């Protein structure tokens, strides 16, 4: 038991989530983080939102490459390979 550790208040928890996720929290704070999270539904919601935010940011809709740009680049490639083949 870690009864000696002071509780991590919600306002502190919201500042250290990235540190927690990156494994950068000192052990003592990691325990405080997890103990608070285990009993605080509001922070559970907050952390869940944070994780869904990260996931959503990572879903990139690739816009199709402008066919004209692509054609220009392929043209440049043909010019290059034509000139460099010896």
């Amino acid at each position, binding site marked *: 038991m870690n009864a000696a550790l002071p509780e991590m*208040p*919600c*306002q*502190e928890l*919201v*500042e250290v*989530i*990235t*540190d927690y996720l*990156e494994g*950068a929290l000192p052990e003592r704070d990691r325990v405080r983080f997890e103990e608070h999270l285990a009993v*605080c539904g*509001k*922070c559970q*919601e*907050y952390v*869940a*939102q*944070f994780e*869904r*935010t*990260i996931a*959503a*940011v*990572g*879903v*990139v*809709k*690739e*816009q199709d*490459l402008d066919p004209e*740009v*692509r054609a*220009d*680049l*392929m043209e*440049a*490639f*043909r010019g*290059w*390979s*034509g000139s*460099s*083949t010896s």
Partner: protein
Amino acid sequence: MSDAALIASLRAGDEAAFGELVDRYHASLVRIARLYVSSQAVAEEVAQETWLGVLNGLDRFEERSSLKTWLFRILANIAKTRGVREGRTVPFSSVAGDDDDPHSVDPDRFIPADAERAPRHWAIPPAVWSTEPDERLLAGEVRELIFRTIDGLPPNQRATIVLRDVEGWDSEDVRNELAVGETNQRVLLHRARSKVREALEDYFKEDG
């Protein structure tokens, strides 16, 4: 295809290999160029110049670095030169958020620190939206909101979240690209993520 095989194909003049490389990386090049220059149009030009730089350098490329690393190094050089010419200085290495609100969540949403009961606990808890289905979170309107929010971040926060969370780079690659220390990078990333989360909360709260 491995980097070495791809390079060999390119050197042999294999057009399909070049096309594959362009399709795989062009969008990322534009997004990253956008971190250094002032407009989408210039970012697009920088990405195109990068491909020309790739072709010019192909004969000299040595497989000590990965193809991807090499590609992004060429991009960064071109983009930085363009950014400087535009008179745009990108304060990537400045201290995290000098200019900026240091709170991840508005302090008014917590019970004051000197309160007798539950100090610094939620007074106005987060509006619940974490259970929204993916279809809503990934819908066009929400995606636009996310990218608008990212575009509006201070440059160093924007660069960090784009490289880490959009492009999926690891923290060491981002540290090399942006020349920010480990701790600073986490601060920048956390601020950026917190603001995007807040924008999503506002959106889902209003939308019900």
